[in-house]
């Protein structure tokens, strides 16, 4: 098992990228136009456009870490940070965090450069230099233990929890056995399973953190939705044969497989442990994907029942369709059909296909989302309104 390898780009900090992107990261949405212009001029560069970076209090540290985390992601060969100047998330701080990985990273501040055109010109120069650096890098043999794999489910249906998610769970168990890291998130979808996940925690501290984040999610759901909170399960799910929120949530967390929970990380925080890590994060797919990418996931497995084309700019996202019907309906967007389980196939069959594809994607094979350029605006998690 542990003999599995892939061909990756080894970064100066020892991490291994499965892609070799140049990231152009605006610290604040006011700098997004310049970041987009720079990236447009040097096509392989990826602009990470988002709507944040200022006007908030609680989220500022988190957003700064998330933006730095995106630049630190092993799939990034080099990063240019573009700041405006007066925003709360400062370009120099984000760039300093990224530079700690040892990869090339520079920053530009629009108000200091003398406006958008001058900044764009300077930015293009820098990115062209980065491009030469990136082109000189070669893939080399890496153990799969260096992979951090994020898990996501979105647009679930009655089959997600019995076909796609348990099959992904088998692949998660495989990666953990190989010494890799799996990140399970979407805390809202863990409600009702706190006693199960905490029992699987590797230490009493991790168990306490698991219970804490899930009870917080439960409270938040009630605060936001009030009496509607129960609609998360009833009545549609009940008609679908699910008897409780716990049973529904079990169908979500099964993606993580059955190994011990080694750590609970914050949204966008890089895990310091190997094995199965829980990242506290929202259930909203797009915010969840950004958190997983910022946490350093080089690969994301995304199960879906209703179907979604969403991908992420830096990270290949493999879509697992819960039924053959969805797979056929959205074949341009779906990578794996887990529906065989409903037609006499086994979960192990689907897991084998998924594992094989995951290794191909690690070696450079593009996912459907990558082929379709599914890399729009980044959504970062927020807790409070902007001021």
């Amino acid at each position: 098992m542990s003999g599995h390898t892939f061909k990756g780009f080894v970064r100066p900090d020892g991490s291994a990228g499965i892609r070799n992107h140049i990231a152009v990261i605006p610290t604040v949405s006011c700098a997004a136009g310049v970041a987009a212009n720079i990236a447009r001029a040097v096509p392989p560069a990826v602009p990470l456009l988002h709507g944040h970076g200022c006007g908030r209090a609680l989220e500022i540290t988190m957003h700064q870490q998330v933006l730095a985390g995106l630049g630190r992601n092993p799939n990034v060969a080099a990063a240019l940070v573009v700041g405006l100047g007066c925003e709360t998330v400062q370009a120099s701080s984000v760039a300093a965090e990224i530079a700690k990985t040892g990869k090339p990273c520079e920053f530009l501040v629009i108000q200091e450069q003398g406006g958008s055109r001058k900044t764009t010109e300077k930015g293009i120069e820098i990115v062209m230099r980065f491009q030469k650096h990136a082109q000189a890098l070669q893939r080399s043999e890496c153990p799969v233990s260096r992979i951090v794999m994020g898990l996501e489910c979105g647009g679930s249906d009655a089959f997600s929890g019995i076909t796609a998610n348990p099959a992904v769970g088998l692949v998660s168990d495989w990666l953990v056995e190989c010494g890799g890291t799996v990140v399970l998130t979407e805390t809202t979808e863990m409600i009702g399973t706190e006693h199960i996940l905490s029992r699987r925690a590797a230490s009493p501290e991790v168990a306490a953190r698991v219970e804490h984040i899930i009870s917080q999610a439960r409270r938040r759901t009630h605060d936001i939705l009030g009496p509607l909170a129960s609609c998360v399960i009833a009545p549609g799910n009940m008609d679908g044969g699910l008897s409780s929120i716990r049973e529904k949530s079990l169908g979500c967390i099964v993606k993580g497989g059955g190994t011990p929970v080694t750590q609970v990380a914050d949204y966008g925080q890089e895990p310091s442990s190997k094995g199965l890590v829980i990242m506290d994060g929202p259930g909203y797919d797009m915010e969840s994907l950004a958190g997983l990418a910022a946490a350093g996931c080089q690969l994301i497995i995304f199960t879906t029942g209703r179907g979604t084309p969403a991908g992420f700019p830096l990270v290949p996202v493999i879509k697992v369709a819960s039924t053959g019907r969805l797979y056929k309906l959205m074949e341009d967007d779906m990578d794996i059909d887990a529906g065989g389980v409903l037609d006499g196939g086994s979960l192990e069959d689907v897991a084998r296909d998924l594992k094989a594809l995951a290794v191909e994607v690690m070696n450079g094979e593009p996912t459907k989302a990558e082929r379709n350029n599914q890399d729009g605006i980044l959504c970062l998690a927020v807790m409070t309104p902007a001021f």
Partner: protein
Amino acid sequence: MKHDILLINLQDNVGVALVDIPRGGKARISSGERVEAVDEIPYSHKMALEDIRAGEPVRKYGEEIGRALSDIPRGGWVHTHNLHTGEQ
């Protein structure tokens, strides 16, 4: 061969119906065995794969999803009417 009931985890004592199973129907379980439905099991609902006595755990995904409120025979329908989940 195509099965009617999916057993997700070998530890489970319930399986999920992939088709509507009439009472008396001999359901093919993904583990290979056949179990006669003693109730009508609606599509995507749970069927007991062994006798579960009142108070005993009902297991799906290898985990306890609740306790039986009454004796549930092998082949019986398992849902909110006979499963105590401890949730409101």
